[in-house]
């Protein structure tokens, strides 16, 4: 496991997460993360050999839905979008 998380690491991860950090924030976060990850490292002590991960606290399995169509009033949803054009949602370019 990585011992030190550098400012560059934090920058890289924040880019992945689409969050711009100021230089000040970068410095603050990277020093905080050292402390936080250090505290989290304690779980390395636990013997997890042959232990199955739990995705939920209770064992809920085999839940499905039948293939039926239900109509939802689309206008209520679209009213939340501020930028629309001819029924499309207007978004930022990708090129």
């Amino acid at each position, binding site marked *: 496991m990585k011992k030190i998380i550098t400012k560059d690491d934090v920058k890289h991860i924040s880019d992945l997460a689409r969050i711009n950090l100021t230089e000040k924030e970068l410095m603050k976060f990277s020093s905080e993360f050292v402390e936080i990850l250090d505290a989290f490292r304690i779980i390395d002590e636990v013997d997890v050999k042959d232990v199955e991960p739990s995705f939920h606290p209770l064992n809920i399995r085999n839940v*499905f839905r039948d293939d039926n169509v239900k109509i939802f009033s689309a206008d209520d949803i679209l009213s939340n979008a501020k930028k629309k054009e001819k029924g*499309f949602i207007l978004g930022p370019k990708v090129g």
Partner: protein
Amino acid sequence: MKVKIGLEIHVQLNTKSKLFCSCSTNSENSKPNKNICPTCMGLPGSKPALNKEALKKAMRLALALNCSFPKAIFFSRKSYFYPDMPKNFQITQYEIPIGKNGSYQLKNKKIGIWRVHIEEDPGKLIHKGGTIKTAQNVLIDYNRAGIPLCEIVTAPDFSSIEEVKEFLSGLISTLEHLRIYDPLNGSIRSDINISIMGGSRVEVKNVNGIKAVEHAIKYELSRQKNMVKIGKKIKMETRHFDADMGTTVSLRTKETEEDYGYIFEPDLTWIDLTKEFISDIKKNMPELPKEREKRFLKQYKISRSEASVICMNFRLAELFERVAKQVDAKLASKWLRTVLIGVLAYKNLSLRTAHIDEKKLIKALKLLESGEITEKTCKELIIKLVNGEKFDPANYVVEKRLKKVADKKELEKVIKDALKENKKAVSDYKSGQKEAIHYLAGQVMKKTGGRAEMRIVMERLKELLNSI
């Protein structure tokens, strides 16, 4: 030259509702953002609900591709940002696909199928007023968001375009036979991985449809060949296929490499693929193209190559079986497989797109079978049916006096008359100009108003000419 091609094919499954919500998958509604709900729009607070039918359809495909099933499946979240992604993560199967380690048998080799899995489709983007590179904005339609996709990932076992074509047409036929894909309403999109001579792998993304795959591979292979010829190294990269230009273009190189940060989807549960569940799917498996082929050989006594061609086309196979109930199978096979398909192809149509009156088609074939019309007339009738003309074959034949000259004596007289009246052609033939027989045959056809069976005319002419 060593060519390595691998495919990642995304097939839209033909369920009535989307993968994780009850919105309709019907693409007939062309207005944007109509088939939407909180879940497929990723509204905060919404939760996914798994469509059982989608899972069953994917399992059918996994079985047809000889994949092995895991004991239980759990969905994953694949995180990346794009305007067509309502949640900026896609619910997919990363760690545990519904099927893996399968295969597909081509005529001459086996193609490895690495995995088959289910995931949700994102929405659709229109690049407003330009191309993907020049548009200033995107227009987003989420009707498609949440439609179930079945992704098939092959091993890079293809070494030619022909193999890819063979695979894709076989796959389409399989999908339709499985009743999990509707070509009118569903799409097939592929990502293609190509490398030549052991060089870097290039990925061509989001190629829409089957023909486009062919074009994209053709272009990319020649592009790579040319690069090598002029001594340039092929970069490992992702390219986009421009369908209008028929070229592949380099996508803008990303500053940061995408890390999808997979976690398990905590809003859904484990699904156990029990013995009972799987055997229920197996029990209800529709007949696959290769099985159908084998049955056709036995049941209809047509040749292997005929059966193979018919079964490659789901609608054709269905039509053939219905027709063969009423008309001789061999006749049906010839006329549907070559004539009907030929006429359709000439008019740029297919069985899918043309609306042929099946009852009338059968009537026409019956008239041929009973000897009442010639092959030429039958073809004429078929052309009219393909054109969508409203008429009754039997009445038409009577009206236009197209009944075949079946009477042997009558035909014999006409043939002999033709020989008498065209002495020059006869002597031309006897002196070695064999094509003169066609002129004579033409004269016979004129006299009978086209109602003589050409084959029989030619045979008899030959006999008579040779005995002169």
